[in-house]
């Protein structure tokens, strides 16, 4: 089903994601220093990379490599869970509106217009302002609840188009029950959209969560996350490049890999490849 070039384009991003996830999962075994350990004998200050601390230390003397790896666990977990939530929500909403059609669909879409017009970051800022520091669980919930609009729109479009396809009519004419038509003839054609948008959404959510944490509104210190490390390194003076570069590169690697993977999946799963 996938050609050789497709597979090649999938391989690199997939490999980097697998590698990074492995590093995240294996963090406690890869680095011996705990992420929040403040040196008892050393210097409580931010130091550039050295043999002992390959990524340097932050302003409290904590090991940046350890914090980046442990931060990966949190960043990835939050992104994956919230995307799982938003994708399911969006798919359900979109499929419902698209399959029912008519006025229900129109009302659903108007509501979606409203939701889409409120910049997501502003909603997150309001919630942060009102509720203050959010535990990670609530952060997942919040990111999930504000991230499903695009999926809903795309799935609804797909489902509406599929509803008119002749093989769906043929199934209905045969006397197949609606639930079975949805499951067997519609869902398999929506999958590629879901997989692609979910992959791209992971990229977006990683960046968004890092941004929120950077603003001090996401993952709360002392917990390590890529955004909080970046915030620590961000001073008006502008020194301490290691606090900007290492977590930043980690974020960009994941986001880039997800985006590249999404692009490659879109090509590989496009109906042209299946039908022709």
């Amino acid at each position, binding site marked *: 089903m996938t050609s050789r070039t497709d597979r090649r384009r999938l391989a690199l991003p997939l490999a980097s994601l697998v590698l990074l996830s492995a590093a995240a999962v294996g963090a406690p075994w890869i680095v011996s220093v705990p992420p929040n350990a403040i040196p008892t004998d050393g210097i409580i200050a931010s130091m550039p990379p050295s043999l002992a601390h390959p990524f340097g230390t932050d302003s409290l003397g904590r090991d940046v490599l350890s914090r980046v790896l442990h931060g990966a666990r949190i960043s990835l977990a939050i992104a994956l869970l919230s995307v799982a939530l938003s994708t399911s929500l969006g798919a359900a909403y979109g499929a419902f509106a698209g399959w029912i059609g008519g006025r229900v669909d*129109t009302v659903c879409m108007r509501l979606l217009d409203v939701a889409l017009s409120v910049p997501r970051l502003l909603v997150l800022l309001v919630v942060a302002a009102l509720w203050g520091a959010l535990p990670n669980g609530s952060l997942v919930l919040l990111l999930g609840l504000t991230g499903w609009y695009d999926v809903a729109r795309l799935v609804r479009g797909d489902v509406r188009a599929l509803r008119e396809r002749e093989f769906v*009519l043929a199934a209905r*004419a*045969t*006397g197949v*029950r609606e639930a*079975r038509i949805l499951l*067997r003839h519609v869902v398999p054609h929506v999958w590629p959209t879901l997989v692609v948008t979910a992959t791209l959404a992971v990229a977006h959510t990683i960046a968004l969560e890092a941004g929120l944490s950077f603003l001090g509104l996401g993952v709360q210190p002392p917990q390590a996350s890529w955004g909080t490390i970046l915030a620590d390194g961000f001073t008006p003076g502008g020194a301490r490049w290691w606090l900007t570069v290492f977590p930043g590169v980690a974020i960009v690697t994941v986001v880039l890999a997800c985006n590249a993977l999404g692009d490659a999946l879109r090509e590989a799963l496009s109906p042209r490849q*299946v039908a022709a």
Partner: protein
Amino acid sequence: MSVSSGATPLLEVRDLAKHYPVQGSWWRSPSQFIRAVDGVSFTLHAGETLALVGESGCGKTTTGRAILRLIEPTRGSVRFDGQDLLALDREPLRRLRRHMQIVFQDPFGSLNPRLTIGAAIREGLLVHELAQGAEADRRVAQLLEEVGLRAEHASRYPHEFSGGQRQRVGIARALAVAPKFIVCDEPVSALDVSVQAQVVNLLRDLQRDRGLAYLFIAHDLAVVSHMADRVAVMYLGRIVELAPRAALFAEPRMPYTQALLSAVPVPKPGRAPRRIVLAGDPPSPANPPSGCVFHPRCQHPAKDARCTRDVPVLAEKSPGHWVACHHVDVTTPLPPPLAPA
């Protein structure tokens, strides 16, 4: 097949209509309708083929789908095998579907690209609990062979087949539930001539062997002349002429039918008929002309104010030959001489 036999017809369509709203929105009821189908009536007997012909947009496809309730009709009645289809609830309708099937025009769109053709054909058997497991496999193999494919094709996907083969799969899918009646919606229009002939012959053979009734929707009059027992000509959502095949092709009465028949290019050089070339395009079904829908393009010499005012009813002008025209009794030779003003 006798046209006016006294037996109860298998299918009886009365005043069927489908109007689509235009310019509607969710707080305002639509003010204008596209009259895709606007009062269509006919009957179809078991084992008979009625062809529904007309040009694109005349409502023939909508008629076919509305009869099967793949599109909900706006009004009218459809009696199938003694039951009123439009009054049926979802579940009884679903169960009844095994007796009436459809074959689509587009052999690419009518098969789910992600299902093997075996699975597509089995689906009908499974949902109507006609066969399961090995028995279903056997039936699928049998059906594939009946439509001229091979049993081992069952495990292949639609894209592995040519257009003609896919159309055979579509026919096998429809046959799986052993229906009495099939709507053939332009089943050969997308096919090349040599393949088209194969599928036309297949449909005829199946009708003979299984006693099927066809509603054969087509725009190609030549194909229709090979398939149909009776022919209904549609224009702008209405049947304007309905007659036994021979009568319709030999002696078309309605001016539109005459023009339609004369427009078909004949593959015999130097023997082209004297052609009636209609002016302009068919009007929009959102805004059909008053009176006879054909009057703006009509070439009939006796065309008069009545044509623009009164809707002509489809009336039986000679046994079995129904025409919707005010002036059909004024016999006109083909083509009509244009009277000097």
